[in-house]
């Protein structure tokens, strides 16, 4: 009797474990059967634009009855989640290194950035957010290192997306005839003026809107979207700035419907939705090409010219891609490698104030 009840207890445990395992398996089978679902994993910024594109895609024959499962978060976190097994058909990240991680894991084809769009699905530029009326009279990068100017930026050490900001500042010197030593000195001074190093671009905006600092290192699309949401701030475009290029890629194992989806994202119809949310149209498309007028883009600093031409627009390619700057500027000294220049600037900035 004693033995039987014990056996029964053991059986019950075994049965419940089997049941749990069965549930897990069942869940997978169900999602496989529904091939018309696209799992979209992206970084937080383009969520609104992607939603609008989904709605438009649903109106096309390809997109009829396609369901979306979306997940948004910090670019690096999302990339690591997919590497760790989060189901994805299509990924949309802030920086190419986050896709490279998936290439290394064998989840994305190495040729992902070989198409005409070079793997890029959305673009913007680095801008400088300022207080109303620009009381500190900020005109460009050089004004940021003046004493007494307080800067808010996301932390390039902990936020991959924030590296666009730091790279723009670096490029402002190196791509305008300056030496690397001069660029290092510039970045040192810049970070000495930083009063808040948040962990994401969103947090930086929140902190700036909460009253911290005189200047916010921001992205044009974020500034426009913030204004659309009634949280706008004045911003200006420095003479030299960096083009932000956000990659998008299909995983090697994807639902068939993901292919027309990424084509749609890259099409005029897809780019139109990005433009309406503040992203610059991909390639040399004009707003006319997309069938919209400047006034359709709400929240831009200059409603007549929402995406003014930049005098000296740098691209990642000028620096040899992320591979050319990742360790050099942002390395954390892992495995005895030299510490990155920006990483060092951040460290120095703290010591100076001690």
């Amino acid at each position: 009797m004693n033995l039987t009840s014990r056996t029964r207890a053991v059986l019950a445990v075994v049965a419940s474990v089997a049941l749990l395992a069965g549930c897990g398996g069942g869940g997978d089978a169900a999602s496989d059967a529904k091939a018309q679902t696209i799992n979209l994993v992206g970084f937080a910024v383009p969520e609104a634009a992607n939603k609008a594109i989904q709605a438009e895609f649903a109106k096309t024959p390809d997109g009829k009855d396609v369901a979306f499962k979306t997940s948004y978060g910090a670019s690096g976190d999302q990339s690591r989640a997919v590497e760790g097994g989060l189901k994805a058909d299509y990924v949309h990240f802030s920086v190419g290194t986050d896709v490279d991680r998936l290439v290394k894991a064998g989840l994305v084809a190495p040729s992902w950035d070989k198409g005409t769009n070079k793997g890029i699905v959305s673009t913007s530029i680095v801008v400088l957010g300022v207080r109303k009326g620009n009381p500190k009279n900020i005109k460009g990068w050089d004004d940021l290192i003046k004493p007494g100017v307080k800067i808010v930026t996301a932390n390039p050490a902990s936020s991959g997306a924030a590296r666009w900001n730091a790279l723009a500042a670096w490029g402002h010197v190196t791509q305008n005839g300056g030496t690397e030593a001069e660029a290092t000195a510039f970045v040192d001074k810049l970070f000495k003026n930083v009063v808040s190093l948040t962990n994401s671009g969103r947090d930086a905006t929140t902190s700036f809107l909460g009253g911290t600092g005189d200047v916010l290192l921001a992205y044009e699309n974020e500034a426009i979207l913030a204004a659309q949401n009634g949280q706008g701030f004045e911003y200006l475009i420095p003479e030299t700035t960096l083009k932000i290029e956000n990659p998008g890629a299909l995983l090697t194992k994807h639902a068939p419907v993901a292919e027309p989806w990424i084509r749609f994202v890259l099409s005029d119809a897809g780019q139109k939705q990005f433009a309406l949310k503040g992203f610059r149209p991909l390639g040399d498309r004009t707003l006319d090409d997309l069938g919209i007028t400047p006034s359709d883009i709400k929240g831009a600093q200059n409603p007549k010219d929402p995406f003014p031409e930049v005098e000296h627009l740098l691209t990642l390619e000028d620096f040899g891609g992320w591979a050319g700057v990742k360790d050099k500027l942002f390395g954390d000294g892992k495995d005895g490698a030299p510490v990155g220049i920006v990483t060092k600037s951040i460290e120095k900035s703290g010591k100076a104030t001690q």
Partner: protein
Amino acid sequence: MTTESSTSGLTRTSGIGLGVTLIWFSLLVLIPLTAVLITASEGGWANFISTVTNEQTAHAIRLTLTGAAVVTLLNVFSGTVIAWVLVRDQFPGKALLELVIDIPFALPTIVAGLVLLSLYGIDSPLGINVANTEASVYLAFLFVTLPFVVRMVQPVLEELDLDVEEAAASLGASRLTTFRRVVLPSLTPAIFAGAALSFARGVGEYGSLVLLSGNLPFESEVASVRILSAIENDNPAGAASVAAVLLVISLTVIVILDVVQRRLASGGAPTKVTVGGGGRG
């Protein structure tokens, strides 16, 4: 049957209970913690040392631990006082206060961060601006750890027999002596358990302070932000190294608190009050 269970030292029910406890505990705590230590060791000893002795990281760890310790000490006093007021005093709005105490528990930490930023940031309506300073870390810790000591001490205080205090008073003990010799010894285990929780929570805190602290290196950057940086740099061994240091220190502090608490408890409590396992944090 009786002999069987007595040889194993456990009745069948308690055996099953122990089994479930161990499985539960292993799955949720032991295995993940071991994984952290293993990941930390993967980078090798040299990498571990260089990670945790990196000046910026070391400062962040120091700030985190000092912050957690100072805040815990404050909580021991303020938490006990708040619990005392909640149990012994009658005043209008008491029920509301009871409710409000738990808000730091219930609030998502990032919301707490927003609240703190708007109250104690640059546009502070109270005129207190600690944004982007070391003080902001202490403030955020204080906020999220407030309920621990209160909620540990409160039920013990409620159970405490007033007769004993009256007896002490009738024998000529002053109020202070009564508190020190009669009440406090009964509360000690609960206070220490609350302190352990408060310290551990402080060490791991992240969400509530990221907006307010500005994460400035050598100023207001806490250890969890350094862990995040290491992860962003695809350096899980570095991240785990910092985590391992925090883990070992937290564990040590909790054990020390437990030992001291037992010493004190056995040292002369006239009334034996059972505290439901709280002291074993």
